[in-house]
């Protein structure tokens, strides 16, 4: 960097993570900084590599659901649903309609919970300490709801191959309506607190811009891709479960910057709640699970199933050879692909921006490292 007549400067290597408060888990990035500017970056992952895909090869199909819970541990139900759909597709299993509705309600609720967590942590990344408390207040209510329905607050193992574990409790609809009203108020409040604060806008607007074309070559998906103006959402493109019966919109941004990525998630929470409300009205009576054998043996074949997770498009590639355990399971984790573009996003930004941009990608290391 040194030129004639200027002070001689050197680049400093700053090792951010794996123990750093804002790398969202055990992510590590090595930054080369010139003063406060990020010149180069090398991301390192794998600190949470548990070999989930390999573990799946040794487990029964029913047991694998518990492994999928632990991939993206913020949106467990979405993951469970993905794997169950893959097996159901391979076996040609019909899922009772009521089960589908319960799945959709819970998955969308989980999306809200996941985005609330993002909401809070993003505030922390930007330096605001209060939003996370408000977000957790609302998330806690959702967790309590999950506890009442599935019996667990995070690792549910509730969505089973062929349906769901059990029917919802009797007062479910009533409690859900109260819950939705409270969450809506909570989101509005946090929205007022953070979203349009001038300091927050200055920190996020125009930071970490990526254009649609680059985002697509990187395989980005979910809110991160939609922030670039690409309306790609599996729930609309290839409606799975009963998503084609609901009226909801996909929030898309224009600039592809951190603020768009942030606000898309806020809007998505509102859309998710619209879906839940419609689902609560439409939900039919009936059985909640198609009885299956204890040991499932899907036929030979392979399927690739896509689903829309809070973090983006998740996919599972399931190869079966007809045995009671899958031959190969490969997960396409959305955070993994979104994180790949970090180098692109961090070009020529400040150290403080690096934290905000990483936060806006909303990664979960559990599924990046698997």
């Amino acid at each position, binding site marked *: 960097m040194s030129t004639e007549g200027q002070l001689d400067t050197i680049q400093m290597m700053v090792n951010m993570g794996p123990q750093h408060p804002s790398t969202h888990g055990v992510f590590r990035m090595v930054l080369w900084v010139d003063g406060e500017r990020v010149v180069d970056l090398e991301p390192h992952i794998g600190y949470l590599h548990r070999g989930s895909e390999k573990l799946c090869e040794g487990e029964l199909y029913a047991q694998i659901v518990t492994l999928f819970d632990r991939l993206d541990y913020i949106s467990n139900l979405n993951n469970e649903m993905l794997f169950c759909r893959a097996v159901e*597709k391979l076996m040609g299993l019909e899922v009772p309609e009521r089960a589908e509705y319960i799945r959709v309600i819970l998955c969308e609720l989980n999306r809200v919970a996941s985005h609330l967590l993002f909401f809070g942590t993003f505030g922390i990344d930007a330096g605001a300490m209060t939003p996370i408390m408000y977000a957790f207040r609302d998330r806690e209510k959702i967790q309590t709801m999950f506890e009442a329905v599935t019996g667990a607050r995070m690792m549910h193992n509730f969505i089973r191959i062929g349906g769901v574990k059990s029917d919802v409790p009797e007062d479910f609809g009533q409690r859900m309506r109260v819950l939705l009203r409270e969450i809506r108020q909570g989101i509005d409040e946090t929205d007022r607190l953070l979203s349009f604060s001038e300091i927050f806008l200055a920190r996020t607007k125009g930071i970490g811009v990526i254009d649609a074309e680059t985002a697509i070559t990187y395989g980005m998906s979910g809110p991160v891709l939609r922030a670039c103006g690409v309306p790609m959402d599996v729930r609309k493109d290839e409606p799975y479960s009963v998503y084609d019966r609901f009226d909801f919109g996909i929030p898309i941004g224009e600039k592809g910057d951190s603020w768009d990525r942030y606000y898309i998630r806020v809007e998505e929470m509102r859309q998710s709640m619209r879906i839940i409300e419609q689902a609560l009205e439409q939900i039919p009576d009936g059985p909640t699970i198609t009885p299956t054998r204890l040991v499932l043996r*899907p036929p030979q074949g392979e399927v690739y199933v896509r689903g829309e997770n809070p973090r983006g498009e998740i996919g599972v590639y399931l190869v079966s050879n007809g045995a009671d355990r899958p031959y190969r399971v490969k997960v396409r984790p959305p955070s993994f692909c979104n994180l790949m573009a970090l180098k692109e996003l961090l070009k020529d930004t400040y150290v403080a921006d690096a934290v905000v941009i990483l936060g806006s990608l909303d990664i979960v290391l559990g599924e990046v490292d698997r």
Partner: protein
Amino acid sequence: MAERHRQEETPQAPVALDDRGHALELLLPEVLAEFQPEVGAVVDLVVAIVKPQDVPAICKLAKEDPRLSFDYLMCLCVVDYVEHLQVVYHLYSTTMKHMMVLKANVSPEKPSLPSVTSMWAGADWYERESHDLFGVAFEGHPNMAPLLLYEGFEGYPGRRDYEMPEYREW
């Protein structure tokens, strides 16, 4: 108990292509004629098995041909079929909304394959991961350093014949 239910011949999952899939199944041999792919269908996916050295050329064609326009690399993974390793590319088109599976078989002894990072930047970490877990070398990849495993890890833990280290109960 598990053994009692085992059947002699495991059934095949039925093919159930949708309209887009049927169109693609007819289109693929035509577009990729010069590479002579084996086009088939498994469940709801159109599968083309090609020679490993052709992969970058096919990918380039698939990405640039307006009838296919596979601009999105959905997933890249390796499946170990013991006698060969199969590198599987799931390609998706954001404009046409269709999907195909490209497969290339490589030998397990010295598996290597040209990289597709120049087509899709998103292939970067997938290829590094495959190299980590299965030992597939991707020629032309800018940085083949270990991604998920630590430096100096012995063996390829993704493969079927990898022996798990013994687990000690605490």
